């Protein structure tokens, strides 16, 4: 055990390191508040938060997959397809020559089910057929995007408002309405985050997920149903992507088949900035939420200050690299250095010494 005096010594550095996502968010807010008087206003913060909501909900699904040691590249496409499906349903479904207009709740449920189904496909490919998650979800990324394009012929549904006469109004409620002054999208994000947080920290499933992501072989021998857990994380990720798709298309009151392109990368970035390890087993909802806010507040801030979109890309990239570097520092430090023979970090040294 570390003696207490060493603990005290390390405290400040450790705090900065572990709270880095939070500090980064503070820095972003302070810098942009100084640069633009409009940045730090309640209305702007809420607007930015509803942008963040889309990324954050995606990122929480992604967090579960990454905790399991996998990756889900298909969420951006799933988000796009969700919007398209919702849009198509809002335009009415022809059944035996009659055009039926399902109510908004039915639209939401069907869309979520499609998202979960795509996740199930990913999960079965990865868990049962042992396809590498990167490859399996890369495949579904293309397939799902293609289906969205086929369904719409590449066009966008512009009218999601519904018609009171048809009884299917209210789709924009998600994107435009507020409850107690808070946009519904943000509330959905908070609920998703809270549920995920409880799931991870207080349920058997959460513990199974952390153990299977940390060491699948050991978890399996301890009786953890590792395959079941693996399938479920992809299902949840697909479900989250569908919810994010609903929020986005509702905010835009339109749904295009190319919506959400490259959002999977933003989601991965949020998870990584939030301190999760891509090797699995480490990470939490709080970090991922902070990560999503850092990315969202940064890019919106750059827009407000008037920095070109190209620079935004550069800044976002730099933040991700920095975050990964700090992750390496943090997890490198936690390893017991007294007996490096036990630790994977020692392998390069070992190789070098004999090679």
């Amino acid at each position, binding site marked *: *055990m*570390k003696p207490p005096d060493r603990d005290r010594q390390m405290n400040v550095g450790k705090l900065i390191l572990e709270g880095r996502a939070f500090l980064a968010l503070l820095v972003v807010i302070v810098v942009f508040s100084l640069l633009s008087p409009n940045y730090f206003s309640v209305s702007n913060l809420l607007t930015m938060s509803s942008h963040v909501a889309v990324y954050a909900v995606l990122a929480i699904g992604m967090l579960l997959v990454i905790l399991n040691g996998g990756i889900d590249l298909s969420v951006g496409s799933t988000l796009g397809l969700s919007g398209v499906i919702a849009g198509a349903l809002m335009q009415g479904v022809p059944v035996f020559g009659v055009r039926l207009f399902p109510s908004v709740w039915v639209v939401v449920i069907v869309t979520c089910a499609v998202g979960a189904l795509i996740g199930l496909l990913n999960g079965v490919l990865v868990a049962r057929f042992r396809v590498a998650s990167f490859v399996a979800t890369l495949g579904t990324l293309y397939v799902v995007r293609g289906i969205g394009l086929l369904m719409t012929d590449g066009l966008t549904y512009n009218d999601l408002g519904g018609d009171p006469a048809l009884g299917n109004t209210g789709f924009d409620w998600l994107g435009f309405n507020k409850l107690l002054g808070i946009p519904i999208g943000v509330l959905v994000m908070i609920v998703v985050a809270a549920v995920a947080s409880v799931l991870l920290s*207080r349920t058997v499933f959460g513990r199974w997920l952390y*153990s299977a992501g*940390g060491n699948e072989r*050991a978890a399996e021998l301890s009786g*953890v149903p590792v395959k079941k857990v693996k399938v479920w994380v992809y299902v949840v990720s697909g479900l989250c992507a569908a919810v994010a798709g609903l929020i986005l298309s509702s905010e835009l009151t339109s749904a295009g088949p190319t919506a959400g392109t490259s959002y999977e990368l933003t989601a991965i970035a949020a998870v990584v900035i939030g301190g999760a390890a891509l090797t699995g*087993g480490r990470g939490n909802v709080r970090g991922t939420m902070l990560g999503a806010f850092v990315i969202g507040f940064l890019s919106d801030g750059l827009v407000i200050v008037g920095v070109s979109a190209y620079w935004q890309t550069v800044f976002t990239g730099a933040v991700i690299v920095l975050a990964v570097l700090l992750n390496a520092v943090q997890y490198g430090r936690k390893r017991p250095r007294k007996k490096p023979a036990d630790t994977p970090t020692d392998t390069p040294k070992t190789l070098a010494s004999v090679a």
Partner: protein
Amino acid sequence: MNSAGEVVLSARQVVKTYGSTRALKGVDFDIHRGQVTTLFGENGAGKSTLMKILSGVESPTGGEIVLHGEPVRFDSTVAAREKGISIIHQELSLAPNLSVRDNIFMGRELRTRTGVDFAEEARQTRALMTELQEDIDPSTLVADLRLGQQQIVEIARALSVNAQILIMDEPTSALSAAEVEVLFKVIHDLTARGVSIVYISHHLEEALQVTDHAVVLRDGAIAATAERSEIDLEWIVRRMVGAGFDLGEPPAGSQQDQVALSIENVVADGVDDLSLQVRAGEIVCLYGLMGAGRTELLEAVAGRVPIESGTIRLAGQDVSGLTIAERIDRGLGLVPEDRQRDGLVQTMTVGRNLSLASIESFVRGAFLSRGAERRLVDGAIHDVRVKTAGGDAAIGSLSGGNQQKVVIGKILATGPDVILLDEPSRGIDVGAKGEVFRLLAERAKAGLAVLYSTSEVGECLSIAHRIVVMRRGRIAAEFDAGVTKETIMAASGEAVVA
């Protein structure tokens, strides 16, 4: 000048601190030309740290390294290797996707004007393999070799750089008795050529066969130094742990009338039509060489690998088709051989590792009860005597022995009727070994059926009521506790090492 026994490399008052932890507290250590110096010590005594300093992996915080009378500083392992110091690490560091030849010359390929001289590399590799009496083709993939053969390749690689000082950290842990014999011959040849060897092993008897000097390290300081001729096993053990060396004896007085585990005509990968019964309260030791099928048998019984035919019964009920989780529920758990790979989740705390297998027992409603979990963890830490700051400590902060106790504690927390342990003493020190065996003996007294495997004969003749010797996937012989080591070893097909 070049006489054997002369000190070639020495550590003078070497201190190494990590933060405020002092891993080495002013150590003096000499390596003699053409002789074997063995470093004994429990896990965490500082053996590996000292070897890392001598081989350039780490720099000392204080003190100096003297090579041929001159103080030196190694900035890297490459620098140390250029001075003729080479180390074979405990964990294999081969690239399984490359051939034996490529592994041996990794990072220092023999170049021609246009590329790599593969023919010459292969020739040298073949020469090394001849020297090591191992018939391995240079173009074989390392992944296709047995673990023991991989260890041989590792040794060949260290030899290939023409090292003057060779440090071997647990070189025999994966070798069969025959391979160990070859290794010892190689060590004799090397020392005859003037190569100095530093040897580290938990296998004390083996180390005593090969060594010229014994150095015992305890708590980061030298506890004793002696010539081989002056000492015996007792001497080393006493200085390592500061206490007597006793792995215990078969516990008496347990009721052994009910068959807890019954393995009937089981055929699986590496297991050939094997039948075995373990009664409640009985401790059975499964002895055999590497590759005898012990691990395969235990993994098949635990449900990790499927069986081709036969039946496995727990208290009379057939469990052959059940999953690992279902078998744990029925009271059967396995403590795997490779703690790091199969036993522990490194990213979780001590407590969460302990509670992992029994986690469903403290669900209240939909949620985990923190209180119930804490009680289980605290109870387990106390029961299996894990030395830790508490359930929230990182699993990596524990010594090997305590990590092993966590893996055992995890299975015991599920309340099993039968516990299988594959090499439970692997890589843990004598003190922890004794504690683990005492723990098993206690549980057996309370009715637990214990089946443990080992490749150290000394461990058969401790707490086991019955010793089963495996050979080529079958049971070669069965003995009662009173048998001699020689009889057991002969039954396993092992030549008795002189």
